């Protein structure tokens, strides 16, 4: 990433972050007041305790999903590979739901949610892997879709077991960045940042793997090992994102395409994902103002990304 690109990315991120904070509807003085390093009056404390964590959640989730999608698409050589299409994201959400329903995970523990998401994501990815073993990598997505449907069926069974929990489960099923505070972010932010760094370090390996298995083998990389590492990175990142915000759809599918069209690698995918999700959450906040703040959960960010992603998908389908 050249210096010019880094500056452009920083400016873009700063612009989206400002828009996001302003869209929350707090007075501008509350934002400028925070710049001196202390949270003074009520409005400043609201921005510090609620606004900033929400922004950070959106940025981290978006970055994690963007990189996870980028790694999957490169390693599997499939433009439709994404966390939500490879069983990883549904698995992670199922893990969280199962943990909550069976009472293994306390409802408010960030580390517990992350562990449950990691377990579920590994399970979902593992099922997909098992189905698609010894097959063409391109086939992986078809089996991933089937695996995702399978996991969704199990989630339905879980909810049927205790329908009264549906209200709590909804937040995870649709994906929302609202209601996260600093305690949730503490460990998960390091987790996501660390794995993005690992993905960046693996850039060279991904570049070797991308053209084909024979190509990778000729250069001395065992393709199975490479794909395994890539899948592990993608699962860890997706679990981190799901543990924070639940099933945010389409960010992991669409933003890597934007990053690749810009000619960038892992860092570009991270920035693109972060900007996309923070922008989507800005729209979600504005939509709440339009609806007179009557919504209990607000407008979940997952709804905005799903609608935008559906528009992209429909365009893709019509052009074929």
């Amino acid at each position, binding site marked *: 990433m050249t210096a010019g690109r880094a500056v452009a990315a920083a400016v873009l991120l700063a612009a989206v972050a400002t828009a996001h904070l302003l869209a929350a509807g707090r007075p501008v003085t509350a934002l400028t007041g925070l710049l001196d390093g202390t949270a003074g009056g009520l409005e400043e404390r609201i921005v510090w305790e609620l606004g900033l964590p929400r922004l950070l959640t959106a940025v981290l989730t978006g970055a994690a999903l963007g990189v996870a999608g980028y790694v999957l698409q490169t390693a599997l050589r499939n433009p439709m590979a994404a966390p939500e299409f490879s069983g990883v994201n549904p698995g992670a959400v199922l893990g969280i739901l199962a943990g909550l329903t069976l009472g293994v995970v306390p409802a408010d523990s960030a580390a517990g949610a992350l562990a449950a998401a990691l377990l579920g994501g590994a399970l979902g990815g593992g099922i997909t892997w098992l*189905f698609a073993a010894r097959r063409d990598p391109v086939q992986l997505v*078809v*089996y991933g*879709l*089937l695996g995702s*449907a*399978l996991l969704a*069926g*199990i989630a*339905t*069974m879980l*909810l*049927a077991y205790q*329908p*009264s929990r*549906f*209200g709590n489960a*909804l937040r995870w*099923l*649709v994906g929302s960045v609202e209601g996260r505070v600093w305690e949730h972010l503490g460990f998960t932010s390091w987790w996501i940042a660390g794995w993005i760094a690992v993905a960046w370090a693996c850039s060279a390996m991904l570049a070797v793997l991308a053209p084909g298995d024979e190509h990778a083998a000729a250069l001395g990389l065992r393709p199975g090992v490479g794909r395994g590492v890539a899948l592990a990175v993608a699962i860890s990142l997706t679990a981190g994102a799901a543990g924070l915000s639940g099933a945010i*759809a389409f960010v992991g599918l669409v933003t890597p395409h934007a990053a690749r069209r810009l000619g960038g690698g892992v860092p570009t995918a991270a920035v693109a994902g972060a900007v996309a999700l923070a922008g989507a959450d800005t729209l979600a906040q504005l939509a709440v103002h339009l609806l007179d703040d*009557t*919504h*209990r*959960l*607000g*407008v*979940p960010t*997952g*709804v905005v990304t*799903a*609608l935008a*992603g*559906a*528009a*992209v*998908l*429909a365009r*893709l*389908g*019509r*052009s*074929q």
Partner: protein
Amino acid sequence: MSIPVAPWAAGIGLGALGLAGLCLGTPFVAPQDLLTGDAVAGVVVWELRVPRVLVGLAGGAAIGAAGLLLQESLRNPLAVPEMIGVSTGAALAVGVCVVWALPVPFPLYPVMGLLGAVAGGLLTLAAARAARTAGGVLLVGAAVSSAIQALLLAVMATADRLQYDMLFRYLVGSLSGLMWEQAGRTLPWLAAALPLVVLCVPALGLLRLGDDAAASLGSRVHRARLGVLTVAALLVGCVTGPCGPVAWVGLLAPLLARRLRPRADARTWLPWSAAFGALVTLAADLAARLAFAPVETPLGAWTALAGVVAAAVLVRRA
């Protein structure tokens, strides 16, 4: 000449499941008392169980047939009724009615569901007009479906706790509370759709050849595909209106039909798919009523269980 075992087995299985649906439960009515029983048993059987079994039978068959129509016309084994916006459209219409407390009387909810299903199907068809290939139509359907799903979740985010319980039962799919009134609104439509399904069979044979070959044989490929999709949407919408989206039957029934007759074509698979759809739905409804009696579990949870197990087994073997 060997005796055809499979049709007899399917017929006997359907008969046994239907009879079990009429007899089992509280109160238990012995088979020989079905026609001559006392007044209470007669009312329970005639007013509650007969319409329920009939709707389960016809609705399951309709979903199974719709699943095969979709899979054949889009040439994709993963094209399920949930992917063309019909089921989700019905769910959205009912969800909006319940959550925003629209002044719609409760008995009219199935009609709202049917309207939503038709609207969702029309939206998909309108959006898919520009798509030229089978894969494109499938993508557009998935896009419309997931957009409607997102809207539904946005609406549900505004609901309160009591409404969740009510909505959940509907959204997972259930045959509970079906009486002659609802059955009377569903069954005639399904009967009317039957000749349309038969009309689709030659089109399926052509579409199966691939777009180019079918076009060179004189078939207007795109129009034929949209026609088949319309029939499938009608079938699914009629069932989804009163029962909610019954998941997995549309995927499972064609899979089983193909497994039973691997070398046949759509003409053979269609009746088999309908038969398997009816079998699966009746069996799942029996389980839903009896497994945790007196509490009734949603039908969709059981079809999901059957679908999960069967898909895992079938894919493992494939």
